[in-house]
């Protein structure tokens, strides 16, 4: 079946602009995660959604970052007033509850000029 998809694959924006990144998880996966990966670094956890429960936002680096998940499926990560340090690859993953394996999408490469 289809894997996790993310759009856009690349996004170049100017400092101060808002951006929206989209994630379509694998159908039936109720858990959804957002991570970001800076150049040459490991992944940094951002936020986690599980069904209709309140999301775990403990990893969001500032209040400029927010995310929502509509209908328990598609998720959008929004970064307001982007800064150059926000430049990174933003990765989305999904999994079945109780399953330890997370399936990652290809990521969105964000460049803030």
């Amino acid at each position: 079946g289809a894997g996790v998809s993310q759009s856009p694959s690349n996004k170049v924006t100017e400092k101060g602009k808002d951006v929206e990144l989209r994630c379509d998880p694998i159908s039936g996966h109720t858990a959804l995660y957002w991570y970001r990966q800076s150049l040459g670094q490991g992944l940094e956890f951002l936020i986690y959604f599980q069904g209709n429960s309140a999301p775990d936002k403990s990893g969001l680096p500032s209040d400029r970052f927010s995310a929502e998940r509509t209908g328990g499926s598609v998720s959008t990560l929004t970064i307001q007033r982007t800064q150059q340090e926000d430049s990174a690859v933003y990765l989305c993953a999904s999994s079945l509850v109780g399953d330890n394996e997370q399936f990652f999408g290809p990521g969105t490469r964000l460049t803030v000029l």
Partner: protein
Amino acid sequence: LAKTTQPISMDSYEGQEVNITCSHNNIATNDYITWYQQFPSQGPRFIIQGYKTKVTNEVASLFIPADRKSSTLSLPRVSLSDTAVYYCLVGDWSTGFQKLVFGTGTRLLVSP
């Protein structure tokens, strides 16, 4: 979450067996050990997971000694396509959720 330590890089040749060792001295009783693989410009991909002794699948084997303070990922007869970054993670997945904490991983380069 238990901290993990693994080599920054390793080099190998096609057809050789590669063993990547990860140290996790502070592993907790409920923690599992998981390995992910990441190719350039792609998201990580689950390889294997274990709790103790040995686990084998079609891709790799995972060896975990009795004290569980380390683990070794074994890739048999590597090919050029195994060139990637390999991440060792330790965590308690019993609740069904775990925010994966990735270190910088081990960059494996396989040469002809």
